[in-house]
């Protein structure tokens, strides 16, 4: 076991635990933001640099601070380590910089983006970024491509977190897509226009933190915050699929089916394409009850639980937003038709 101090809070975790996972044990809200790390995906993390934290003391044995900020998602704790997340101004400043970097070439077409409302980049930018841009250059764009009949790739929105690549590597036999090209010309692609066609390909949609990989059967049907998430299950015949899903309702219609996610926004169990794309009738499912969605973005304010905002955000929030929030406290999630 290793005892660490994280933003002034002491916690004991098994050796080998990463700083990120130690912090998550304190509650998701206190943990550093993660744009690329994804617990179920081996090898993920270390890329987006959103989760950089300061290690003020390396360990009890060697209490020197680490010279650079470290990626908390891949850095294991040491006994006696002292970690600063929001208690370090340097961390907050660097994080602002990371938001800026992720946004300079991002289209910010949230109003027409299916991910809006459940987008990690929106949340990250809202909580940690600044609302102006210093970028005056032309933004990088790509054409949209259909990768098969069920999934659309909107590369312009991709933040190159590699999650979909790891998903395909680890979940399916024979990955057919990957990162092509280099630097800011890198793109997710299938090299020759290829179909991502296997029973579990739909999971790349769920792991994508942004609206780069979207469910074509749901495209433009509804803003997510106007749909009602309901947990359901069925006896799926696919051996690797547990058939436990979240159905997203508008009225009595199931608009889409996704995997269930935990409090950190990570998929709990992968689901097969049949459950995701072909079972869109209530009669296909046994309903378990409303899904518990716990999000911190105001984009979800219409529906989800009261957002918990960190002090920094409240301090930076425009007065008009504060007033609005005070007058219209976000409603708690109601029942099926609430």
């Amino acid at each position: 076991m290793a005892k660490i101090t994280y933003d002034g809070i002491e916690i004991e975790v098994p050796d080998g635990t990463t700083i990120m996972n130690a912090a998550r044990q304190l509650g998701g809200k206190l943990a550093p933001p993660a744009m690329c790390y994804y617990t179920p995906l081996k090898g993920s993390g270390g890329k987006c640099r959103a989760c950089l934290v300061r290690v003020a003391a390396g360990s009890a044995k060697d209490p020197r601070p680490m010279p650079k900020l470290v990626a908390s998602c891949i850095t294991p704790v040491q006994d006696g380590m002292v970690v600063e997340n929001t208690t370090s101004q340097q961390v907050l400043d660097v994080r602002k910089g990371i938001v800026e970097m992720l946004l300079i070439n991002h289209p910010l077409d949230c109003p027409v983006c299916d991910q809006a409302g459940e987008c990690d980049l929106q949340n990250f930018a809202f909580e940690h970024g600044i609302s102006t841009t210093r970028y005056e250059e032309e933004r990088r764009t790509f054409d949209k491509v259909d990768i098969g009949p069920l999934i659309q790739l909107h590369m312009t929105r991709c933040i190159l977190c590699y999650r979909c690549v790891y998903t395909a590597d680890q979940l399916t036999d024979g990955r057919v897509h990957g990162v092509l090209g280099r630097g800011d010309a890198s793109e997710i692609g299938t090299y020759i226009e290829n179909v991502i066609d296997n029973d579990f390909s739909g999971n790349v949609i769920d792991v994508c933190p942004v609206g780069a990989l979207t469910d074509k059967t749901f495209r433009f049907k509804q803003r997510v915050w106007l749909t009602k998430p309901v947990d359901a299950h069925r006896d799926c015949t696919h051996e690797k699929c547990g058939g436990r899903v979240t159905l997203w309702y508008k009225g009595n219609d199931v608009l889409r089916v996704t995997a269930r996610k935990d409090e950190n926004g990570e998929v709990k169990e992968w689901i097969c394409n049949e459950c995701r794309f072909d079972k869109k009738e209530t009669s296909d499912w046994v309903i378990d009850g409303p899904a518990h969605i716990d999000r911190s973005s105001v984009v979800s304010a219409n529906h989800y639980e009261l957002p918990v905002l960190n002090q920094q955000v409240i301090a930076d929030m425009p007065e008009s937003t504060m007033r609005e929030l005070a007058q219209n406290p976000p409603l708690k999630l109601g029942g099926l038709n609430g």
Partner: protein
Amino acid sequence: MGRKLLTEHINVEGIDTFDVYRKHGGYRSVEKAIKTMTPDEVVEEVKKSGLRGRGGAGFPTGMKWSFLAKPEGVPRYLVCNADESEPGTFKDRQLMTKLPHLLIEGMITSSYALGARTSYIYIRGELLYVLRILEKAVAEAYAAGFLGKNILGSGYDLDLHIHPGAGAYICGEETALLESLEGKRGNPRNKPPFPAVSGLYARPTVVNNVESIAAVPVIVNEGGNEYAKIGIGKSTGTKLISACGHVKNPGIYEIEMGVPVEEFIYSDEYCGGIWKGRELKAVVAGGSSVPILPKDLILKTAAGEPRLMTYESLSDGGFVTGTMLGSGGFIAMDETTCIVKNTWNFSRFYHHESCGQCSPCREGTGWLEKVLHRLEHGHGQMHDIDLIVNVAKQIEGNTICPLGEAAAWPVTAAVRHFRDEFEWHVTHPHEATRPGAVYHGGLVLA
């Protein structure tokens, strides 16, 4: 004349063949090491020599070797980094072209020291003709019994493979190199774990630059202490410097560590001064990623001491008034050089070569290039100058691999030392874009 430890026989006719190389004392270090020394004794000599990695970072080679993990029953590897792609650096290419057997001899002696039974030379893909030279030399070494099974009857086996890259600067970063060697996309790995613990195929691995490995035979032959007598302080031995830009005699020079920069630029033994009778304006002393210095600071430190060609002297003053020896890519610029244009050009390179894995480098390198392009072409504004410094700072220290810093340092250093030139581009956009017009020392040269 300084001593030439690596290049003494470089101009001997046929030195690229096994027989001629052998006649000139080649492969003695292999015999000496394998027949008379234990592997640890070889490591000890390299430690004593004070040899520091010649690939850029200057990490002590002996120390790196002693960090290599040696779990029972697990193979370990030596990988030679011959990806040399940093603008201004072209010493390894010359060494491999002219003296292929020196590198192979170094690989055998070093592999023996590390207990590696399979070793690799990862060579830059553009150097296909050098690959052919090396392949021929390797075949000769196998035929002569210096590679393969039971080398010199000692029971020590070694296979040496040469693997070409596919044209990516990033594959010179040691962990990207290992990924590429494994047949994957050349993305740098997160560290730790370091290669010494988990490198090629997740096995303990040492990665060394061509020139570092080429220095091992002479260290073994003459002894580490003897090697360490050359040079000053922690900069021991000799160093290959590839001199280019506006010098009279560009080329590759093997210098004893400690030669004054002024002597290196102006003496006829080395660069022979600045070409066309012009004046020196600035120097990038160690490959495109190290900070540029104006003439006065490259010739003398801020304290007024003569600047020497050593790790310590070149970095005297930190990044405020100093730079780095880096890989030894020495780029001299005369007064007709536009620093803004040069900085943009370097930025363009790093933008093109970023692997794109981590957001600050992927996005930041492109941003830097675009703003520098505008500045150079007369479309910049005053606040753009602070913007590029700030963007560079946002990259620096926050990335997976040091390419982030390599992209940031040239920009911050150029603005630090030549801010007036950047400002002139903003205030005089028409003049700045006039062909041939260059701002230098407060004057505009037509």
